Each structure stands twice: as C-alpha cells, then as structure tokens.
C-alpha cells in the first residue's frame, strides 16, 4: 500500500534549499489530522506558496490524489533551487504539481483569483533584521523580518485574493509572529480560524492554523455595515484561549539550523 505522505529518503536536497524540519512535519501532520475534512472538501485546485524541498506539496498530492481524483496542484517558491528540488521530490513519488519560480504568487493574482480551494503555507517566520528578507537562496526560507511577519503579511492578502468562496488556508506560525493577532486580522476579512496542530520544542512553539471563510461573519459584517472593527471581547477571549502561554515571551528558532 502506498505511503500517504512523502518519504524523507525520496525528498530531494540542495545546499541552498531548506530541508524538511519540525515546521514542515507539523504542517503535514495538520493536513493528516484534517484529512477526512479535506477528502470531503474535494478541492479542485490546491496551491503551496513557498514549496521548499517539496515535502508538503508532495504529501498533499499523495493524500488527495491527482487529476484522476479531480485535483490540480500549483506550487511556487522564490528560490529557483527550491523549485527544482520540489520537482525532483514530486517525480520520485510519482506525483505531479505545476511549479512556478515566483515571489509568493506574482503572475497568478489576475487569473487565479477566487480559484484556490486549499492553500498551504510554511512561511519564512523567523524574526530577522528586515534587510535579510527576500535574500537569495536558503535565507528566503526563514528570514521573516520584524516579528517574522514581513512575508506573512504579504502572503495573507494574496491568500484572501486567491482563495475560492470555499477556500481553506493552512499556515505555520511561530509564537513570536503573534498568531492571535493574525487570527484577528483574518477575522476582519471574514475568516474563521482554528489551531489544527500545536507543537512546542525547546527552541520554538509552532502552531498550524487553518483559516476558512466564515459566511456567518460576512453576513454579520454586511448587516452592521462594518467588517468587525470592534471585536467582541468574547471573540478575543476565545482566540486567546487557543494560544496558552502566548505571553510576550519571544521564542528562539531552529529554522536556520
């Protein structure tokens, strides 16, 4: 019986490409944890932004099946070496995704608007000096600028644009990224959210958060004529209760190891 996720021994590698690590495993574990829902969801178009070694998009393709099952895959990375390694990883597992070397989804925003049913992102979330963001090579896999949010804050509006009405987004965050604030910001755009996987190591605390368009929220927003500018206290409480120990403590990181 074929393995449902990518096998590490078949994942390609290159010194300029981020290898599958705790964050990649957490994201794939989140997809596995939500697999029943994903299979029921029957996404027609799945997309990964920042595919790195290809471990995640390959795992997703193995879990959900290919065109024969009605699903099309697109993956992007700003690092040309990463896209090449992803293509090797996909091929080694006998699955296909369309690959594009580009910054987030540049070139796709016009024609792919509202078509993506599932988006997965393991962003460069490590807090770094701003000038390291978008550097060539492997640094692009982790350098996240202030609070690790520089690239995340560019990805989220793009995700909002590309996701279909029934679109889901799975994203890895670090405690230092202030995930509860991200959830509140996404809520203002009409998305509900929940933590699918939470993982703490000595070095970092990771959350994989799932976002989906919440029709009730949008309805409420259109009725009041405002998109939730004032967040009810209960919402904040419920969100914060999702993130135990989310104090001002800054985690270190292992993404560069």
């Amino acid at each position, binding site marked *: 019986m074929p393995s449902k996720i990518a096998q590490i021994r078949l994942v390609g590698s290159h010194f300029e490409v981020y290898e599958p690590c705790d964050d990649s495993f957490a994201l794939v574990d989140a997809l596995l944890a939500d697999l029943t829902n994903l299979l029921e969801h029957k996404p*027609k178009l799945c997309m990964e932004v920042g595919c790195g070694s290809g471990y995640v998009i390959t795992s997703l393709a193995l879990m959900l099946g*290919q*065109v*024969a*099952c*009605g699903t*099309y895959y*697109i993956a992007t990375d*700003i690092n*040309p070496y990463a*896209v*090449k390694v992803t*293509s090797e990883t996909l091929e080694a597992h006998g699955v*296909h995704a*369309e*690959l*594009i*070397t*580009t*910054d987030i989804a*540049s*070139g*796709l*925003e*016009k*024609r*792919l608007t509202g*078509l993506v049913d599932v988006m997965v992102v393991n962003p460069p979330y490590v807090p770094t000096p701003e000038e390291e963001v978008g550097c060539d090579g492997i640094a692009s896999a982790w350098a996240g600028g202030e609070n690790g949010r520089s690239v995340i804050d560019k990805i989220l509006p793009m995700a909002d644009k590309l996701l279909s009405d029934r679109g889901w987004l799975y994203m890895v965050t670090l405690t230092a990224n202030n995930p509860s604030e991200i959830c509140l910001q996404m809520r203002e755009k009409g998305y509900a959210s929940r933590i699918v996987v939470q993982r703490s190591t000595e070095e970092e605390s990771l959350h994989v958060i799932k976002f989906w368009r919440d029709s009730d929220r949008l309805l409420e927003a259109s009725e009041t004529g405002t998109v939730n500018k004032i967040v009810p206290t209960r919402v904040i409480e419920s969100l914060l209760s999702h993130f135990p120990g989310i104090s001002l403590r800054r985690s270190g990181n292992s993404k560069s190891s």
Partner: protein
Amino acid sequence: MRLLTHNMLSSNIKGVTNGFPLLIEAEKVVEKPVDFNPDFLRNIFPKIDWKALVAAARAVGYGELPDTADAAMLESDDFLRHLHHALLQLHLEEGALVCPETGRRFPVNKGIPNMLLHEDEV
C-alpha cells in the same frame, strides 16, 4: 508547464496593464499521459480563457482545438479528449513566455517558468 497553468499566468511587470496571455516560444514540448477525467474538464472549462488556450496550443504545435467553444461542446467525447490533451498532457518543457506588452521574456527551463522580476520591474 501545462497549458492550463499558462492560462492562469500573466506578466507581472510593474505598470503592465495588458499582460495576458503570455506568448509562447516553444523549444521543446513533451507529452505526459494523464488519466482522463471529464468532470475535471467540465469544472475547469468556465475558468478558461479559450482564445488564449487555442493560441497556446497552436504555439506548441497542437491544432485540434476549435476557434470558439461553448459549454454545449462538453457533451462531445471528441471535444473533451482534445481539451484533455491540450490542457493537461502537453507540457512546455523548454522555451519562454513573452510579455505581450513589453516583449520581456520569462524563461521556461525543465518545465518551470521563472517569473522573478528584476529590481526595476517590481
């Protein structure tokens, strides 16, 4: 790169208003078999820019698509087979995508288009 992906790509250069469709310069085209799934084709059909697809198919040497198409044609097995082949089985392996407005070439190597911009294009 499949022609379905080409149908979703536009020139992303700053200031370009008419960046779709990208013209195809084909150096090498390969065919890879894909399981036939009529439902997938029916679902994706409304999202396709037909004119762009026909031009792309011709640019890679495939002339079996009609100049115009409408949803009624999705009843025809012949039409679906041709659509399947054009959208999913033909891959632009080596060549370039050319911005229709500026003529800027985006290279395609080993089936992967490179849409990265130079600093003065962002």
